[in-house]
């Protein structure tokens, strides 16, 4: 009697153990398969979204050049085909976190800050921008998928000053992979000097061509410029084998004061730009500079030449406080270029550049939500051209239903 009972007990124990083990293994296989399937869906969605963003101009196709709200989202240049993005549509994206919104009391408006380096500024009226929620809705992923788009120049063109008795600038060009040796550099130096006839500053322009060495570097000398006393802006375009990039460097002589001028893009469709006194934006206290400025719009041609174009209110005076209105100028909205503003207060000189179309100064834009703390994020990478400049678009997509 005891033998069959033990036999039954042993067999049941072994059977239960075997079943438990097999269920656990099968469960693991199924869990992996479900995870793979979910991740594959996110990866496919990332590909779809990337195609929509890079290969369709949106609706209306020229929404980037207008101040209307788009009915369909896409960043492709409506006048081109393939992986060509519109420099204007990208300017209408609200940078991640607003990029640090700037409030200008004289217009009562907030402006998105695209966070350029010193000497550059791109502040676009929030009313002209489209935000992440709207974009997600237009892309059909609102509430189901989150995403972040990073649009960055392929080439990193960094410029630094080499200690010397006169101005020597070191230009380094490198991509995500390697330094770019043998690249042709088209550079433009705009030096700000005093006008002997009036208070408005003058611009002395010079340009040249150089080439990077095997380390992707080049030294460019300006014997006529003294870094300690001269204000200037330097823009360089690098290109090799179909790869194009841009970098800039700026030096002000402001005696420890912050920059005097803040340019705000008032209307993208009309190309109107406000030239505001910085003390009206951030009250730095007295003394308040009485600023004279000289503005020029430089159109970037296909051959990487900066061609000056006449604009309205190219010279003017701005000051701080009530009764001291800001000035407004207008650039040709259909032309990509740089609004170059030189300013002066006594013997203090400075410059500020506003890119019209993000590519002319190599502006990077990060748009969307933050993917940190997400369980799994699919990424897509594409090479694109933005008005002749090489850019890379990286798209991160994640599911919101995990």
């Amino acid at each position, binding site marked *: 009697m005891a*033998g*069959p009972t033990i*036999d*039954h007990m*042993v*067999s*049941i124990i*072994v*059977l239960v153990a*075997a*079943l438990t083990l*097999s269920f656990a*293994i*099968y469960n693991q*296989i199924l869990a*992996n*398969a479900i995870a*793979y399937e979910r*991740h*594959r869906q996110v*990866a496919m969605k990332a*590909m779809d979204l*990337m*195609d929509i963003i*890079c290969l369709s101009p949106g609706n209306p196709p020229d929404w980037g050049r207008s101040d209307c709200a788009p009915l369909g989202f896409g960043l492709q240049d409506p006048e081109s085909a*393939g*992986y*060509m993005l519109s420099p204007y549509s990208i300017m209408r994206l609200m940078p991640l976190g607003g990029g640090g919104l700037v409030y200008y009391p004289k217009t009562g408006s907030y402006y998105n800050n695209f966070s350029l380096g010193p000497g550059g500024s791109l502040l676009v009226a929030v009313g002209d921008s489209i935000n992440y929620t709207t974009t997600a809705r237009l892309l059909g992923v609102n509430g189901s998928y989150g995403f972040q788009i990073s649009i960055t120049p*392929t*080439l990193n063109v960094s410029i630094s000053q080499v200690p010397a008795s006169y101005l020597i600038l070191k230009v380094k060009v*490198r*991509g*995500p*992979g*390697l*330094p*770019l*040796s*043998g*690249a042709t550099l088209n550079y433009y130096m705009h030096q700000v000097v005093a006008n002997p006839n009036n208070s408005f500053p003058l611009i002395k322009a010079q340009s040249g061509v150089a080439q990077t060495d095997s380390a992707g570097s080049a030294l460019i000398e300006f014997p006529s410029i003294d870094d300690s006393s001269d204000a200037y802006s330097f823009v360089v375009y690098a290109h*090799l*084998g*179909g*790869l194009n990039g841009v970098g800039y460097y700026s030096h002000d002589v402001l005696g420890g004061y912050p920059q005097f001028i803040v340019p705000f893009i008032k209307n993208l469709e009309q190309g109107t730009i406000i030239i505001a006194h910085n003390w009206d934006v951030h009250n730095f206290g007295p003394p308040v500079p009485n600023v004279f400025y000289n503005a020029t719009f430089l159109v970037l041609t*296909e051959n990487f030449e900066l061609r000056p174009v006449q604009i309205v209110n190219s010279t003017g005076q701005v000051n701080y406080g009530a009764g001291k209105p800001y000035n407004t100028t207008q650039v040709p909205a259909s032309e990509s270029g740089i609004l170059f503003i030189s300013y002066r207060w006594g013997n203090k000189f400075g410059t500020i550049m506003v890119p019209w179309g993000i590519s002319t100064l190599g502006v990077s834009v990060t748009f969307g939500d933050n993917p940190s703390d997400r369980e799994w994020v*699919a*990424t*897509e*990478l*594409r*090479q*694109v*051209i933005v008005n*002749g400049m*090489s850019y*890379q678009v990286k798209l991160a997509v994640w599911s919101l239903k995990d």
Partner: protein
Amino acid sequence: MMRTVEVLFVIIIILGAFMITTQFAVLPSPRQIFGTNLRELAVSTLQTLDAKYNLSRMAFKDASDPEWAAMQKALSASLPPNIVFNLTVFSINSTGGIVTYQLVSSISNAEGDLGVGSESASCLVTSSDVTFGITPEKIGGKKPRTLYILNCNDANGWWITGYTGQSLASDLKNLLSPYFQTTILINSTAQLELLLNNSTQIGGTKQNAVVINTFGEAVPIPRAYCQGGSRESEGYSGGSYAKYCHTLGIKTRVYNWTWVSIVGYPVYYVTNTNFFTGSSDQNTYGIYGMKQVGAAGLNNFLRGLDNQAYSSSDTQWLTADIREQLQFTSEALDLSNYYGIYPAPSPMASRALPVTGSLSIVSRYHLTRRATMFELKTVSGVQYCPAATFSHTGGGALTAIGLTRTPDIRITVLDLLMYYRPSIYKSEFGASDTSRLVTLQLSQQGGT
């Protein structure tokens, strides 16, 4: 003991099932599903490198040319460090109908093959040395027609804002002369008189010719046809120059011309800057050297074309203002592609001619509407034609482009080509190796 043995059998069956299942349920490696989409990255890389034709230029250069090295540097610099590439160029040759691909050269930053996990994309590039030429058939065939373009230096234009008659004449000559055996510019109103009188001093064949008036709503008038001139009776009557327009209609019919009005209301003014020099000799908008004829001009032109008598009282306004954008007819779209002429899309017409109703020029003057450029538009129950060629059953034709200023002469050119339909023979010449295939293979290094 028996039960334990049975359970062991069950376990063996379960393990067997598990083994068989795992054989079939093979999950792909993570990289295959979630790795960078190398194919699209390769496509976008090829497109961006060829945005300014750098890739095309390089593909046709010798492998020792510095452009190959530049392309290698550009590829190395632009791709992420963990991605290796192989860019290969093949020449495409066709011998006896068999297409063969021959390796020209390749550049890579990897040693050996890129592995089975690699992806590739390709594109065709064309040599910049290749020339695609077209040989147009001459209009008229064995009896080629002559093209006369009014380029009178003593005439002013109207509704050609931004242009001059002379600049338009030059452009029209460039666009149309390949389709005509002979193209002659009529450089003064004196030469125009010779043309109207079939003088041998003007070259070309007057019969069956095409005459283009480049002065918009104004038409040059020779001095002889003006008041007090030797041919006043053919040009001036009762204080109006509508008689001149009637004469032009007659000449168009007799010589079987195709008279072309490039914009606006046809023959609405007459112009001669040497004769109309008075302070009131202007078109009421400050353009001097011309006299207004008004609607009587076109009416009498059409009367002359239809062999009807001149009427000084026929001053009925014909055209309508179409207050919406126009659409090309399917015929115009097809022939636009055929001839490679692409006018600005969706223009407006403020001088469209009626083709139905009591004012219809088709029924009143025995005309046939041909080469209709835009879809007809209905205004107050009457159909209007913005641009077409109206041919008369007894000879002669009027091409009337009734669009709003400023003129788009591509529409004039296309309408004439639609009317005559000359064939064009496309040819390709240059090197035989005109296209090359470029493939870019990418592979990801590291990871699983």
